[in-house]
């Protein structure tokens, strides 16, 4: 039997435990709030918590969609695989290409903010004071991470687990003590009522808030290496989704209702509130969690010492996941003919996808140069001010990050709907709630209402991004356009369908996926569903 034949390709070992699965996702998504908080407070002011709430609701829908898809199709390809299977090759390419943009931005943005957090203890690294030193350190970090990935050195799952555990404990302590001793509900309400932003600023803040929830690809990447993923992934994912949502909502509410431990004054020497240290100050925006932690009474004295270090390490892990993730996604896309086979090329000595790492690492470095240029050379400041409303380097990276995430997540929702309609036979051990039973092409299917709600939410964030991010609306679509042109050339060169899809045996593929995942009961259930469906169709003569 073909199904029983062992694959000739080496497979990833399934050694990740439930905690490993959680910490894998947490070390990726958990770092996002360290970046997003300051950016959102700077623009959304008194509505920052509302911006996080809106983005958080959308994120919960995305998280549930990824949980269902990763538990049903536990393969490392992630979003692009689900979209390719649900909608076809070209849409799978667009989703994957958008994720690749996010991963390259992830490398630069998180290395950048890692240095910003370090600057809290090492003021010599403050970007506005020593931009060249800041640039060189970020450059060295990105190049160093690429080099480590080329020679095959990765942080271990155990290291991820320890850092994640420390961070969950630390953030929980900051939030618990902050809410118990420094939170003033009337101050929160006062700030929301007196400092409500304009609709434009709220849209901008909401589109930036989504970057606090990016990285759910890690759920599907962990699924490939988790034992019994259909059982484990839903358990860990729900905890991960709630944890990240709580941290984002808690930080934004606390920042608006915080009675600072030490008095804060503005540039003119007038008393100011905590959130007011972020507008027009990119240095502060890059290390918001460290600044907030330092304002928690008593505990802040201790937190001011270790939170910048913990934040810098977590952000560096997340930056590394960008290097690793981009090469893995490119490898997966290449194996399904969405990208040229050169991205599958593995170095004979180190057994790593060197071409992918070097290619996407180079793009990350280019993004860094573009982001840092106006601060490094004043000659660039004028065109940036003229064409891009004077956006800073951090804004540029955040713009593209939000664009890539909103685009790929939009397609993932459509992919989920497509898979529910076209692949109703695959057993779904976890199914997102609120479904409408119906018949489609002779099969009983369940139409996911949450996916429609999530799609409307994330698509509106994509529109907010295009409306409010001068750089994102130019470079984001340009990235997709360049990718699409290359894709069409490649497909034409390989004589593959340009706009259509290759013929694939998805039934065999699904049975193989479940078998290699160790989900033998689900595989049997799937094969029984297929058999029953074929018999039913034969009886009906269709």
């Amino acid at each position, binding site marked *: 039997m073909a199904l029983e034949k062992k694959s000739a390709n080496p497979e990833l070992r399934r050694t990740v435990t439930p905690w490993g699965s959680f910490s894998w996702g947490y070390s990726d998504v958990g770092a996002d709030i360290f970046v997003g908080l300051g950016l959102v407070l700077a623009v959304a002011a008194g509505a920052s918590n509302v911006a996080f709430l809106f983005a958080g609701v959308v994120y919960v829908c995305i998280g549930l969609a990824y949980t269902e898809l990763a538990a049903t199709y536990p393969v490392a390809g992630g979003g692009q695989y689900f979209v390719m299977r649900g909608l076809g090759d070209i849409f799978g390419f667009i989703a994957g290409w958008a994720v690749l943009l996010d991963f390259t931005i992830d490398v630069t943005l998180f290395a950048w903010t890692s240095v910003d957090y370090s600057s809290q203890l090492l003021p010599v690294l403050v970007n506005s004071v020593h931009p060249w030193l800041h640039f060189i350190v970020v450059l060295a970090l990105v190049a160093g991470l690429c080099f480590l990935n080329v020679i095959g050195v990765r942080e271990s799952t155990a290291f991820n687990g320890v850092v994640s555990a420390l961070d969950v404990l630390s953030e*929980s302590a900051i*939030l618990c003590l902050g809410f118990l001793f420094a939170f003033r*509900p009337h101050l929160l309400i006062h700030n929301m009522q007196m400092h409500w932003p304009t609709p434009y600023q709220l849209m901008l803040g909401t589109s930036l808030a989504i970057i606090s929830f990016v990285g759910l690809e890690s759920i599907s990447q962990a699924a490939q290496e988790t034992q019994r993923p259909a059982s484990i992934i839903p358990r860990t994912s729900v905890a991960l989704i709630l944890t990240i949502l709580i941290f984002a909502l*808690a930080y934004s*509410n606390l920042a608006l209702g915080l009675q600072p431990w030490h008095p804060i004054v503005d540039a003119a020497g007038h008393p100011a509130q905590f959130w007011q240290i972020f507008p027009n100050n990119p240095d502060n925006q890059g290390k918001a969690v460290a600044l907030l932690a330092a304002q928690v009474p008593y505990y802040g004295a201790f937190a001011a010492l270790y939170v910048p270090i913990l934040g810098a390490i977590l952000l560096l892990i997340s930056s590394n996941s960008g290097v690793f993730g981009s090469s893995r996604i490119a490898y997966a896309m290449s194996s399904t003919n969405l990208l040229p086979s050169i991205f599958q090329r593995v170095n004979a000595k180190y057994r790593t996808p060197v071409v992918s790492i070097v290619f996407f690492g180079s793009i990350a470095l280019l993004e860094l140069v573009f982001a840092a240029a106006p601060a490094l050379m004043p000659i660039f400041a004028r065109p940036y001010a003229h064409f891009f409303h004077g956006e800073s380097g951090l804004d540029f990276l955040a713009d593209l990050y939000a664009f890539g995430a909103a685009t790929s997540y939009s397609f993932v929702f459509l992919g989920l709907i497509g898979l529910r309609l076209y692949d109703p036979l695959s057993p779904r051990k976890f199914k997102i709630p609120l479904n409408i039973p119906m018949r489609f092409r002779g099969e009983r299917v369940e139409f996911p209402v949450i996916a429609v709600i999530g799609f409307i939410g994330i698509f509106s964030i994509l529109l907010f991004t295009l409306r409010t991010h001068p750089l994102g609306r130019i470079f984001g679509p340009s990235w997709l356009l360049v990718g699409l042109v290359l894709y069409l050339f490649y497909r034409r060169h390989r004589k593959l369908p340009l706009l259509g899809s290759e013929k694939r045996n998805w039934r065999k593929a699904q049975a193989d996926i479940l078998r290699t995942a160790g989900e033998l009961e689900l595989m049997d259930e799937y094969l029984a569903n297929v058999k029953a469906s074929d018999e039913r169709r034969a009886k009906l003569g269709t």
Partner: protein
Amino acid sequence: MLIFRAVLSVLTIVVGAFILVQMLANARSGFAIVPGVVLGAAMIALGAHRISLILRARRT
């Protein structure tokens, strides 16, 4: 380890309830309390979810 996680879960519920009560006490402010209410509810949900996982782990 399970006891430690259980204590953390209970703490999450307590802080969630604390935030929820504080926000509901300002219910007259209308929409302004919504993000805080959602935060409190989410913390209670997470604590309950973790406790259910701990109980399941103890049973098996």
